[in-house]
């Protein structure tokens, strides 16, 4: 079984649009949306939820007001500024480390579980899907990503799928690391802008750091052909395959407004053809 992660560094380059189309083009794939704090793939794939799991991430400190003597030791030792002046816990700041529980001289503080989000196992027209939603403002999205990937793996084994397609979050931090670790290839979707190029370079370094073979797709390549050429030669110099160059076409937004994957909504258009060609090229490099 192979795993492919679609990532980008910079947000909004087209990861989800491309992943949704791959889900359509692939036969027997399991799809995983690992952008757990702003997941969008479900908007295009319309999953039907089969199972919901509570996600318990970091624990939360709770102060027993009756027992607390307001000595202030917890506030002094907490490095996350999570204890307010009136000795309440600020849930957003608390990282559940437990330091306050061990320094409290009267045992007034305990750690309790908190539900930080939900993971879902779903069915779509195109195959099974693992996804999740982190509760707004919660921490530890990396751990939830790991749960989504575990769910995807179980689904892939059960349904005898040969590939897991992972839609990654933007950035290069903990949820991205959790999305790329141990996959067979990382497709970096970039755009020919200064920011796109800067972030592409960092995303490629991240893949290298974790030993993940890189592939590159340039979205809206014709918005700035000079920059596209720069990306192509940069990739050539570094022996990185550019597997797709997708043109700018307003039909992409139209498909999005109609909440359909572009290859279904506008098959035969230049964009749909290019994504289909790219999918074939990716499959052949994975073999």
């Amino acid at each position, binding site marked *: 079984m192979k795993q492919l992660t679609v990532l980008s560094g910079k947000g909004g380059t087209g990861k989800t649009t491309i992943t949704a189309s791959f889900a359509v083009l692939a036969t027997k794939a399991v799809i995983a949306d690992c952008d757990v704090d702003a997941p969008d793939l479900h908007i295009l794939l319309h999953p039907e939820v089969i199972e919901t799991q509570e996600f318990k991430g970091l624990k939360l400190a709770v102060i027993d007001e009756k027992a607390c003597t307001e000595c202030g030791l917890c506030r002094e*030792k907490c490095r996350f500024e999570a204890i307010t002046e009136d000795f309440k816990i600020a849930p957003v700041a608390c990282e559940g480390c437990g330091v306050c529980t061990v320094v409290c001289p009267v045992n007034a503080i305990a750690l309790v579980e908190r539900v930080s989000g939900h993971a879902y196992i779903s069915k779509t027209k195109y195959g099974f899907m693992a996804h999740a939603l982190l509760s707004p403002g919660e921490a530890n999205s990396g751990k939830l990503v790991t749960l989504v990937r575990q769910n995807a793996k179980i689904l892939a084994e059960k349904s005898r799928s040969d590939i897991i397609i992972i839609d990654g979050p933007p950035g290069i931090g903990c949820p991205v690391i959790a999305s790329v670790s141990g996959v067979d290839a990382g497709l970096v979707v970039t755009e020919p802008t200064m920011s796109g190029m800067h972030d592409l370079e960092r995303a490629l370094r991240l893949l290298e750091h974790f030993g993940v073979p890189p592939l590159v797709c340039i979205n809206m390549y014709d918005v700035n052909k000079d920059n596209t050429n720069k990306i192509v030669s940069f990739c050539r110099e570094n022996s990185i395959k550019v597997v797709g160059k997708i043109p700018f076409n307003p039909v992409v937004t139209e498909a999005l407004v109609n909440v359909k994957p572009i290859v279904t909504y506008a098959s035969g258009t230049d964009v749909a053809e290019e994504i289909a060609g790219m999918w074939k090229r990716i499959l052949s490099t994975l073999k």
Partner: protein
Amino acid sequence: MIVSIASGKGGTGKTSVAVNMALSLENVQFLDCDVEEPNAHLLLHPKMSRDKPVNISVPVVNEKLCDHCGKCAEFCKYNAIFVSSEKVLLFPELCHSCGGCVIVCPKKAISEKQRRIGTLKFGSAGDLELVYGELEVGEPMAVPIIREVKRQIKTYRTVILDSPPGTSCPVIETVKGSDFCVLVTEPTPFGLHDLKITVQVLEDMRIPFGVVVNRAGIGDKKVYEYCREKRIPVLLEVPFQRKIAELYSRGIPFSIEMPEWKENFKTLFDEVRKLVGK
């Protein structure tokens, strides 16, 4: 006044709005808190003056004092310490730097050392002061760097914070303490979906906010309907124009080539000021 620019969905134009707004005002301190992918400097073309490493404290074990009781590993909620009968293994990249292991060790065998996870960069463009953070590639934790960037805030200036995308801890850390948050969205189902999540976060945090619709004209009208229903002020619309996209691709803030926009951003900021009451 401290104004943060956030979005939920990535790539809606946060940095573009933040930079163009900053260039339309005076006495601005611009803090790029998207430390995973800082991009504002690519548009601001600043003169950089200095770098400062960002370190976090991680444990060091004195093997001579350690009797492998395992209390530190048991305590650590982040699985950054593993203790076997002969050895202590540390995974510093997982460490959240809480300092708990030092406290719980009965043999006082644990101390802390500094570990670099990123860099702060200082520069200026005209009278604008720029500070941005850069997370080292391969490091998972952005929050300590964001915290460090925010320690540079000079409240006597107009502070603009450019947030990372998403709705989780790095975003919270960025917008925390802002007088106002400008949410940049695009009029598509993705933009709307992620806007709604971000609105929930800001409501929980009790930070006043308004919306800027970027790439107006593409997509549909649902973002506007949502804002009307929720009585969220739509502060500005930036239309989708190939010229704006091309300028952005070359690293040029569009208000420089299209100076009429400076007035629009000034008006936007005045509106924000009114809403904040400052």
